[in-house]
């Protein structure tokens, strides 16, 4: 009793300060009736803030099991073999589509997730899950160009600067992204399955690839750091990494104005989840403005949460970094990659292999 009184006193003393801090935002509250239940989360490693899970456990009075994986394939392997008991998984875009086709995901009940209204509309309805039946965005990022600022003092704004650069360039070994960029120039759907269009994209890239010294498998940032290339087409997180490591302005990241690839990792509920209701509650919790902002402040990926961005909970430094948060008009130019099916995949693979051979890779 004494303890409770003491706690009350402390809370009362702290209340004015807390009120001043978030005047408009009411802390997320857990719906009743989940006390004592268990939620099992399967997420990428280092992809959650330190207090996200403990706060949820406290708010709902539940226990959370938290396991990590290192690739979509590893997660997929576990779920395919029969869901071992996970309620939440975090697949990337194409994987959402694959899992939905294989009936490995269960539909979300939006009535249980009112915070869905907080999401950036441009990030909803992506091609891999047009109705957001199975997935809601968790964090997102882009593919763009990392470049040496001494070579490009005025920055890069167009893919044409990449194609025409007189110096070494590294491309990203991500066939659908690279062909997708070419499709943008040719006025085609970036996820086209048409053989002629795919070959046209291949020829376009071949014509523009004269300055390519390597097609890097996700290590373009290292080549850039070593000075082997002036431009590397890469994921934004990788380019940011080398900028932080060197604590300098030698490298910058830009999304060319023509558009580029956006990747979105999503919250989904796998089939046979033991506690899908609590999973929906958790998704709603993640989509809360404050919770979403805390996530981004910790892991430095872009938040899909409009309310988090507008509420001012996200650190200015992160919010104002166009490499993390591209401006809205740029977001509209981004395309997501979908699973195109076995037939188109073979066309794309052949086109890409031919391209690599002609580029001398």
């Amino acid at each position, binding site marked *: 009793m004494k303890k409770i009184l003491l706690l009350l006193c402390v809370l009362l003393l702290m209340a004015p300060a807390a009120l001043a801090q978030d005047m408009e935002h009411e802390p997320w509250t857990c719906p009743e009736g989940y006390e004592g239940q268990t939620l099992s989360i399967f997420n990428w*490693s280092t992809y959650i803030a330190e207090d996200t899970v403990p706060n949820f456990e406290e708010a709902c009075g539940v226990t959370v099991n938290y396991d990590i994986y290192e690739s979509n394939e590893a997660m997929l392997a576990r779920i395919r*073999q029969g869901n071992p008991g996970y309620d939440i998984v975090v697949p990337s875009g194409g994987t959402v589509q694959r899992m939905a086709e294989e009936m490995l995901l269960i539909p979300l009940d939006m009535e249980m997730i009112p915070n869905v209204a907080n999401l950036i509309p441009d990030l909803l309805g992506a091609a891999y899950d047009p109705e957001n039946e199975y997935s809601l965005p968790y964090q997102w990022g882009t593919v763009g160009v990392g470049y040496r600022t001494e070579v490009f003092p005025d920055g890069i704004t167009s893919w044409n600067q990449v194609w025409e650069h007189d110096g070494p360039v590294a491309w990203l070994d991500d066939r659908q992204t690279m062909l997708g960029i070419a499709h943008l120039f040719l006025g085609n759907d970036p996820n086209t399955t048409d053989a002629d269009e795919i070959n046209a994209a291949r020829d376009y890239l071949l014509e523009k690839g004269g300055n390519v010294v390597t097609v890097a498998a996700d290590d373009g940032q290292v080549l850039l750091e070593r000075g082997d290339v002036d431009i590397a087409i890469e994921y934004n997180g990788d380019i940011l990494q080398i900028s932080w490591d060197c604590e300098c302005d030698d490298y910058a990241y830009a999304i060319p104005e023509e558009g580029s690839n956006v990747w979105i990792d999503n919250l989904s509920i796998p089939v046979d989840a033991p506690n899908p209701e609590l999973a929906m509650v958790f998704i709603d919790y993640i989509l809360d403005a404050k919770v979403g902002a805390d996530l981004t402040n910790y892991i430095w990926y872009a938040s899909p949460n409009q309310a988090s961005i507008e509420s001012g909970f996200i650190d200015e430094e992160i919010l104002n970094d166009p490499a993390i948060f591209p401006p809205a008009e740029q977001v509209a130019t981004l395309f997501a990659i979908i699973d195109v099916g076995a037939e188109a995949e073979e066309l794309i693979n052949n086109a890409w292999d031919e391209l690599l051979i002609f580029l001398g890779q």
Partner: protein
Amino acid sequence: MRQGLINEGAMGRNRVIRRLGSAGLWLNPVFAYFFLWAPILILVLFSFNESRSVASFTGFTLKWYSNILNNVMGAESAFSTEIMLNAFRNSLFVGTVATAISTVLGTMIALAMARGRFRGKRLLDGLLFLPVVIPEITQAISLAIFFKVVFDWVALISGERMFPGFHTIIAAHVTFNISYVAIVARARLADMNPQLEEAANDLGANPWQTFWRVTFPLILPGVISGALLAFTLSLDDFVITFFTAGVGTSTLPVFVYGLLKLTVTPEVNAISTIMMVLSTILIGISLAMQGRNASRA
């Protein structure tokens, strides 16, 4: 004259070869130590690294160890450290239980093989080596499918849905550990002088007394080193654990593998170092046991 020259030449060659040979003999262990220990030394070194990155060493610190210690003592609870510690505890738990079960079963099999007469002894002899020789991934997948089939049957019969968890990991670890224990214990039994058991019988001990008073104490060092081997294998195992783990039961190797995509912090190096020291102590005890045993025999 000519003969002498040739001999001198041959002797010179011999001397060179002998020198090279002794230099080579000296170099071999140097290479061995280098290959065995250099990567591990780097792992240990980086557990004292001040920077979060494992790319360059920026300064000496004990903070990663103190982070772990603080979480263990409950003085602090950082979520990321907590899930790593959970994995570490899971590893120890799985290792201990799987070792206990497989040591009992393995010793029983070794006894049956050495003393018993039964049909299919030859076959069992061959099968015992199977988990040692087949690729781990094959065993992992077969176990995963086996558990799935069993769970489906249980669900069909009782309507109760079963999930993988500690029980499946432990069962899987027991399947491969049994062989190692049995092989080591059997080697001990084969070395044992059978006349000792006969003497006990002559002196009026029944088979039960003979086993507990004569046979078991004599093979105990073999059983213990088998158990320690099993424990080490359990702690190290990744592939089989990955395929049989359930929710919240990731062991340390599975947890560390999950980190690959993003960052492996020095905290992981620190806990790996702790685990390695633990394994080294166990192997040391195991070797000491075998050594003591060999000198007594």
